């Protein structure tokens, strides 16, 4: 089926007659490409290995390897004799001027029909990974599927090749130039998921009442752990686009959202941001912000160091008819100590506090309401060298 193939890699064996070195005479029939491997284990580059039979004569042989319309990294080209590695030796490689080509000088111990393996890095052929997950109605697990998408825009048609990833079995696949193929390669039903709601005071607006007619959505994510317990954990999950769906209880699904994941090594978590909840509302306000304990003044009686007295309240309302656990992130820059805080927090770093707030479902009496109060002091604040304040930034 070579009619369609626009093979542009030309391999010619030049019979070295005497010491003719000029005017490269290209002779001999084109050796057929044999077993071909497309190796996609490195996301940066695709390695092609192909086998060809060269008819070598005893003595010095010149073999011309040229390509057109494809991008091959010339420095990546390697040649390996498979039948008589001791007798067939690559002596040198020459690069003709202004040509996508090279000439191998091969010494052969005898007349051989030698199978050689030529390998090179080929551009514009790669693979993508995509995920599709369908959650159950209760959002406790997902049926996870992963697809391999082969994209070949290299200029080269591959009738049949062994395709290798960094894990799993190799498989036979042909792919033409400009062709894209999508194959299911991982199917993992019943993967447990944790649903995460997150309010980060440095990312989301504080006071929704000050926004005219806009809802502040609390980002919602699904968390999947790449481990045995989840039925995964065999290999790192490659980064790619993930689309999440949910069983709607009517033998159909709805689309929940999509996100892109980075590579998730074994044992690590994948967090997929699906959308925003507008049924959890956080209203955060600063109730006090004052200078106290003037520690030092300069000769002009100007303050050079002081402490602060700050109070923040955050009202959290759950309008959902189900419970939720809100992860709330608060930031206090610089040196500080907490005078009073009505909720438990975990200090994630010097200036980041994380609260896990259990929100019961809304009842007939109204939304479930919790209120966080933080009363703290920032210490040894120096005018001009103030660390950045935890100001609300634009939402993501």
């Amino acid at each position: 089926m070579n009619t369609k193939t626009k093979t542009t890699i030309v391999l010619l064996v030049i019979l070295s007659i005497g010491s003719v070195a000029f005017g490269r005479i290209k002779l001999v029939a084109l050796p057929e490409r044999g077993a071909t491997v497309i190796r996609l284990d490195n996301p940066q580059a695709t390695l092609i290995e192909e086998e060809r039979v060269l008819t070598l004569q005893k003595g010095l042989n010149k073999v011309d390897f040229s390509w057109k319309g494809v991008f091959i990294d010339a420095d990546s080209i390697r040649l390996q004799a498979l039948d008589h590695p001791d007798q067939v030796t690559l002596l040198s490689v020459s690069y003709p001027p202004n040509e996508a080509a090279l000439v191998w000088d091969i010494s052969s111990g005898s007349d051989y029909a030698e199978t050689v393996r030529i390998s090179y890095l080929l551009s514009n052929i790669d693979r993508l990974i995509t995920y599709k997950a369908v959650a159950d109605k209760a959002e406790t697990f997902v049926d996870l599927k992963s697809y391999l998408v082969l994209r070949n825009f290299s200029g080269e048609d591959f009738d049949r090749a062994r395709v290798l990833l960094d894990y799993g079995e190799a498989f036979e696949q042909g792919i033409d130039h400009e062709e894209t193929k999508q194959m299911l390669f991982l199917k993992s039903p019943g993967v447990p998921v944790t649903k995460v709601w997150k309010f980060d005071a440095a990312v989301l607006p504080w006071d929704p009442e000050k926004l005219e007619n806009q809802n502040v959505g609390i980002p919602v994510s699904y968390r999947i752990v790449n481990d045995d317990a989840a039925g995964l954990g065999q290999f790192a999950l490659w980064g790619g686009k993930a689309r999440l769906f949910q069983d709607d209880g009517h033998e159909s699904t709805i689309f929940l959202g999509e996100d892109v994941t980075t590579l998730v090594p074994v044992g690590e978590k994948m967090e997929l941001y699906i959308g925003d909840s507008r049924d959890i509302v956080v209203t955060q306000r600063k109730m006090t912000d004052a200078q106290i304990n003037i520690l030092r003044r300069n000769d002009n009686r100007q303050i050079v160091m002081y402490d602060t007295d700050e109070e923040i309240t955050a009202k959290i309302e759950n309008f959902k008819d189900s419970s939720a656990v809100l992860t709330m992130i608060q930031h206090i820059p610089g040196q500080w100590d907490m005078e009073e805080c009505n909720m438990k927090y975990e200090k994630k770093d010097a200036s980041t506090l994380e609260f896990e707030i259990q929100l019961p479902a809304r009842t007939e009496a109204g939304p479930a309401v919790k209120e966080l109060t933080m009363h703290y002091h920032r210490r040894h604040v120096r005018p001009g060298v103030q660390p950045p304040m935890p100001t609300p930034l634009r939402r993501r």
Partner: protein
Amino acid sequence: MKRIAFSSLITVLMAGVGWAKVDLVTLPSRDTVQLTIYNSTDMTLVRESRALTLKDGANALQFSWANTLIDPTSLEMLPKANADTIDIAELVYPPRVRNLGLWNIESGVSGKVPVEITYLTSGLSWRAFYMGTLTEDEKTMRLRGYVVVTNNSGEDYENAQTRLIVGQVHILDQIAELARRQYPYGRPGVAPVPQRMPAVAAPAPPQMEMVKELAVGFDALALRPKEIAKEGLSEYFLYTIEGTETIPNGWSKRLQSFDIEAVPVVNLYKYEQERYGPGVVRFLSFKNDQEHKLGQTPIPGGMLKVYRGVGQEGHLSYTGQSSFKYIPVDEDVELNLGTVADIVVEPKLMDFKTENYRFDTRGSISGWDEIHTFEVEVKNTRDINVKVEIQRNFGTQYWDIRNSGDFGQFEKVDLDTVKYTLDLQPRSSQTFEYVVRTYHGVRQQDWRPASR
């Protein structure tokens, strides 16, 4: 016009034999179709069922979607019977052909097999809008909600079960952009070049104007408006319109979502100079709860046009309009109907003085207090009871306040804002006074919070 063509090519796929030489065998039509339309982004999930005739062995199925706005990467086919003997091996997007996909299927059975095909498309949209009619005394409002579904997808969907999603979905790529790509997954090596739009389908942005409205179809349900079932799923709400709908390409259709006879409303007026300027802004306030005959589901954001009944013969007067945001169950709704002249709030500075000056070593002023005395007059010139909220901002967190007169409810909102809430009888006025002392410069060190 049907633009999605679906052909089943039954063939023996020999190694290396190109699919292009295969002849079409059957063209099954759609049996059912379901549309799940999103309004936070231009996206619809389409689910169709079709009966394919498969042969034992290798089958090739061709799916083409020229002039539609389908995202080819979202295509999925699932057999609904004999799932264990039917292997959908791969989906191929052949070279140099646009808007065409080819499924290679290994079947262990021969005969008719029901399959379900899902994909995402753009060009279908929906929006919510509302009509409110106040009674003459403005104590209650009849609230009617509508949804308008518009089809500019390039495809006619006949007798489709139509579902609407209320919610904020996270999307990485616009479906319309994916639909216009030359290669479904793009190509490696070069940045994707935006492609020209298909010549036929000309989707407008989702907030497009209505083109036409179709009357509800003349079927068995024609004698009453269709019901819309509402249920929560994940963070979203799913509206399912009763029966099926036919919305041809280019058409819109309006359906009633709910009709509540008498929602009790509060006439709320707000004054905040920094936010609304010198005028008083009128709000209609109610709560999305059972007490207000609502509270079954959240109310999706949309535009509300408010009318007021006038006289006995059902005449109407137009009050104003307000767009509002998504309202969760049990949440308060405040609809901004704009500035009014019949409620007046007039804060007057009656006295100003400074004191408690401090000086630094060079003799310059380093601290002082400012004392503002404001008299606030609130007038209700209407024939109905009203509630007035007045917010005052001081621009500093170092302040003390003393209120006197008819100041209603007083509340500290945040570190530099206070709020007065007053209830006024018809044609009445109230006056109150506040004295605010603000601390400046080094005097701020002498300030102590009143709350502690």
